[in-house]
């Protein structure tokens, strides 16, 4: 995982609620090794037909949206399965931030382990942002992690809260397991006092 940097990038709108993890990464790619570029499988069945032809109506196939590094989605994005591959698909494609009113809990947890920033904004703010993007495909959205703001080129800006620990992890890259292993003595002390 790369450290998170200031994002000023094309945003892909996902204007459907409940866009589940099966849409982000269909189950038949779960058997692929992590060394694959999961970006190739991102939204696979929305991007391509069964015969491999491009679905011209899916936005990611439009040149304006192809460089997207941000996803702006409606509520309950990435609900469903625990597959971390959904995060890998977004990340490998180049997406570094998902902005939505809500996302699946397991997806949020997986995102935090892989350097994918999740920003939650109210539904009306997201609706407005999606409308702006759809009105000018290829529109940039700016995510400033230091200032904790999301803004559009028209100057509209929304702040978001995140704790300093998570922020540091995103900026510096996080090795959570490495940290926990330094706490093994406390885990073992817990185990000694644990009867079950």
């Amino acid at each position, binding site marked *: 995982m790369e450290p998170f940097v200031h994002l000023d990038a094309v945003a892909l709108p996902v*204007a*459907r*609620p*409940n866009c*589940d993890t*099966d849409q982000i990464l*269909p*189950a*038949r790619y*779960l*058997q692929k*090794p*992590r060394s694959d570029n999961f970006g190739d499988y991102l939204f696979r069945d929305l991007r391509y037909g*069964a015969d491999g032809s491009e679905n011209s109506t899916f936005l990611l196939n439009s040149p304006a949206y192809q460089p997207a590094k941000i996803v702006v989605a*409606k*509520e*309950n994005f990435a*609900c*469903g*399965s*625990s*597959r*971390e591959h959904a*995060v890998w698909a977004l990340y490998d494609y180049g997406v570094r931030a998902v902005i939505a009113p*809500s996302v*699946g*809990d*397991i997806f*949020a*947890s*997986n995102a*935090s*382990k892989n350097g994918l*920033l*999740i*920003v*939650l904004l*109210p539904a009306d*703010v997201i609706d407005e942002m999606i409308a702006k993007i759809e009105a000018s495909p290829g529109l940039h959205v700016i995510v400033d992690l230091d200032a*904790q703001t999301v803004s559009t080129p028209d100057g509209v800006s*929304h*702040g*978001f*809260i995140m*704790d*300093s*620990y*998570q922020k540091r992890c995103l900026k510096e890259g996080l090795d*959570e*397991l490495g940290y*926990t*292993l330094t*706490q*093994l003595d*406390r*885990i073992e002390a*817990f*185990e000694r006092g*644990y009867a*079950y």
Partner: protein
Amino acid sequence: MIYRSLRGWQNCLSSSYKRRKQRADTDGDTAVNQTPPAPRTLFDKIWNQHHVLEREDGQSLLYVDSHFLQDGSAPAFEMLRQRGLKAHAPQRGFGTPDHYVPTNSRDLASIADPEKRAMANALRDDTKSLGITFFGLDDVRQGIVHVVAPEQGLSRPGMLIVCGDSHTSTHGAVGALAFGIGATEVAHVLATQTLWQRKPQAMRITLEGKLPAGVGAKDVILAIIAKIGAGGATGHVIEYAGPVIRNLSMEGRFTICNMSIEAGGRAGMIAPDDTTFNYLAGKPFAPEGARWDKEVARWRGLASDAGAAYDKAITLDVSALQPMVTWGNSPEDALSIDSRVPDPANTPNADRRAAMQRTLDYMGLTPGMALNSLKIDRAFIGSCTNGRIEDLQAAAAVVKGRKVAQSVEAWVVPGSGLVKQEAEALGLDSIFKDAGFQWREAGCSMCLGTNGDTVAPGQRSASTTNRNFVGRQGPGSRTHLMSPAMVAAAALSGCLTDVRPMLAEDL
């Protein structure tokens, strides 16, 4: 304007403040008035008991009692290998292959696709090298991990259980805190037997009334999801309570907790009672003798205290509930069988309208169509939602003496080898086979099709599974979720139909 960057943090900011304040108030009170401790929920009690330490961001390191593994876990084992780490507490792990196993053979070598075969083989090899208990395909106890673990008594009240699968919420039915995790977290649990978590909020769903004949647990959970929405419990642990739950069998409780994730819930749980203890007594991994008595006494204390506070609470009366089916591509798209396909024109929000139209196009439906006449091509009875003995009995009661419609390919895939064995001892296999069902081997099978058992593009499937997502049962598949009895009725009549008249004929 300031907004939160993660729902979890949103919960943390509000509830940890509340908790700190409560603690401060309580401490103060205790010193002066000797006030008894605040009432706690089942969830609070289990959380507190597993709390090892707290990190600067407020996340807790929780100790994991049981870690279940299936054949999708290969990436996690790989992460562990790359770091040269061993399993910290292999005796707390358990693995059985379910996602990639064939259901027409018990031979891994028969898996033609080398990648699928490698997934199933990896679990066998990785559990062996780490010293983790494993039930392979040559073991009658193999099956869907969420069916096998409770059946073996590996899931018990008061436990904290995780597994790299979202339907881990199933195990909450025994009074455990159980939830799905991603691959990085699976590796973390293997290496440390712990997991970092921010405490979710608590939600209580109270089920009042009496279930009408022909209506069961699957109908209840579909009705709940339809009511609160696919994101209605996001950030929450759901506790199901009330007389309907108390009167429900363990199989029914598993079905309800299983689909908590379909409402966005982090977990679903039910306070353990005599039904739970009777179910667990004598299971291979359950405690015995004096230890059993001691554990039961402890488990009885797990139920939420009177007056315990929940962040959200809803009540649903089930007395007028009818058999439910889904029409769309989210489990929240559930309606009673006598309903008609909804009309997008009646939806005020433009994005919602467009999404609904896309759903109808995908599902091959038009507004106003009666759900109870939709012709089906496939019928599937099985999965971690409805692959237990009671599910097969409910379906068999409908099927007995009848024939599957000629146009329908109907399958029964028992949730485990032991469920299959028990069903065969009861003669259920003959009932299904005589009717024209395929009677197959245990596994996840056509719930998500990772093993190659799929519904063909454009085919309509009546299924006892948990997700009707676009492409879930195979690219282009059209899934309608419903109870085992309702799938049986659909298989026989060739279309979605109300099972209740068929039950009445039996009487």
